[in-house]
């Protein structure tokens, strides 16, 4: 039996995209070969006084090159340590972990009239959706208009604090449409991703949204609002959640979320974000 092991990744490059948000390219073939969009890796600090691994979602997977791309925000001493990594440095990590977005489920069961997938990201929740967009596109082979062709139309809905946007140009190259919102209104729709969706006519009392799918990642208030909206509009919605983790593999039960029904594994209304998630159907969880 082959056991999963921590990997040593080599840093290929790192750059700061906007203030405090870093884009790290790593060479780690074993992880790149297995990883799926929406999964994450656990990064270990070199400073051993910081014990716990930091979970970071995969913003890109280069299966042929054996690389992964991580985009993270510096939010403490651990991520600050990572931000100082230079090409040639190494980094310990474990992964891929978690379930990922159900890309094949969506592309495999798409409506004959076409399926419209909205990738909705807020702040540092945006990066995993970039790989998800690419995976959707690869999985279908082609994107385009929806009418009667059974094709998948991908729209990214990206929410930022202000005009310091990141990744939006890359989304433009893989998605059919990109909608942008900023809290201060300096770019795109003023407000949140919900305001952008509303402005685009995607949130209304119109029924017949069964060919629409939402994949979302971002702050909890955003996910909560999307969950309510999706339920009201009859939209299939998946949410990628975040919580403080310790083991990252489903053993310690630190990172649980509340579920609507009793969970098979836990026997209570709790599921493990690291192991059963981080992606859940909106209706199965409570936020």
């Amino acid at each position, binding site marked *: 039996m082959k*056991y999963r092991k921590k990997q040593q990744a080599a840093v290929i490059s790192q750059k700061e995209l906007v203030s405090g948000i870093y884009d790290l390219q790593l060479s780690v073939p074993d992880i790149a070969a297995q990883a799926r969009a929406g999964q994450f890796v656990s990064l270990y600090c070199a400073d051993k006084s910081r*014990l716990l691994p930091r979970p970071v979602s995969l913003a890109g997977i280069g299966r042929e090159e054996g690389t992964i791309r991580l985009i993270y925000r510096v939010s403490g001493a651990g991520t600050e340590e990572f931000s100082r990594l230079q090409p040639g440095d190494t980094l310990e990590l474990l992964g891929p972990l978690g379930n990922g977005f159900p890309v094949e489920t969506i592309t495999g069961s798409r409506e004959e009239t076409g399926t419209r997938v909205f990738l909705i990201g807020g702040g540092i929740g945006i990066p995993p959706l970039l790989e998800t967009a690419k995976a959707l596109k690869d999985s279908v082979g082609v994107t385009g208009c929806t009418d009667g062709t059974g094709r998948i139309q991908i729209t990214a809905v990206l929410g930022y604090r202000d005009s310091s946007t990141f990744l939006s140009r890359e989304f433009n190259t893989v998605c059919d449409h990109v909608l942008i919102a900023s809290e201060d209104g300096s770019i795109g729709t003023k407000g949140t991703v919900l305001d952008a969706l509303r402005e685009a006519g995607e949130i209304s009392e119109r029924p017949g949204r069964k060919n629409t799918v939402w994949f979302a990642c971002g702050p909890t208030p955003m996910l909560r609002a999307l969950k309510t909206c999706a339920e009201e509009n009859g939209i299939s919605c998946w949410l990628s959640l975040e919580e*403080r983790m*310790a083991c990252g593999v489903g053993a310690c039960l630190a*990172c649980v979320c509340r579920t609507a029904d009793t969970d098979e594994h*836990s026997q*209570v209304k709790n599921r493990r974000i690291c192991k059963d998630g981080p992606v859940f159907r909106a209706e199965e969880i409570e936020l």
Partner: protein
Amino acid sequence: MSTGVIGRPDEQLEVILPEMKKMKTENSEMQEADLRVTIAGVELANPVMTASGTFGSGMEYSEFVDLNRLGAVVTKGVADVPWEGNATPRVAEVYGGMLNAIGLQNPGIDTFLKRDLPFLKKFDTKVIVNVCGHTEEEYLRVVEKLRDQPVDMLEINISCPNVKEGGIAFGLVPRGVENITKKIKAAAAQPVIMKLSPNVTDIAEIARAAEAGGADALSLINTLTGMKIDVQRRTFVLANKTGGMSGPAIHPVAVRMVWQCAQAVSIPLIGMGGIRSTEDALEFMLAGASAVAVGTANFIQPDITAEIVDGMRSYVQEQGLANIREIIGTVH
């Protein structure tokens, strides 16, 4: 072994063969090193266990480490019915350690017996079930249900700091410890290990009370109660406000307590608290522990337990010992 050896094939062979021979000899010596220890009549292949609550029931970590290589797997606390645990955040990192306030979330004894125990029984390792409860009756219901089960030992958690009366009410005063130990001993079919709280004035007094109650062995220490405050948000980091501290920072406290208890009681001790290396584990044994449990370090390195088993083998050889048992309690 280098694949860059230059020369004719037979010359390469001459280089490679002695090396292979050496490796083989080293391996067989490694296997011969006697790491067996006995606790309450139960012989473990080696002294390395997992600490309750850090390893689930072994299923998740079985992808990362060969459970057959462990002396024992100690399960996460099991109660008579499923427990939901605390609100999140349930963990926080602190310098050299972590705080947790999981609140003993567990699926309950019935699911444990149906799903988790059969899984563990597939491996050649001892199974120690950690038992938790809010009341005496709840503990006893679990212990009763385990009577006819293929379980090697019970570890009774009378020391969880994160659950109101989740054991700690029984674990803080000597009289309470002695009483609950007696009742569990009367009901249990397997040897009983009492897991002690370090959050007491005199750990030796508690250890003596457990021994007087008939405990077959003691596990120590559980986590130290701690707190972390978020200065930006000006509130507690943990939803539970307080949590149990574990990790390398508590190791010297745990070694001291094991040493103190070793002087106070004659039943075997299982040392735990902050082990993240072979050296850390050996300190516990020298202080008087017959076995050790690795907890938080599993989160840092999923195969750390197997690495410590290997490290102990090397230590037995390097020190010229007949077996690992020779060192138990030799520092006093």
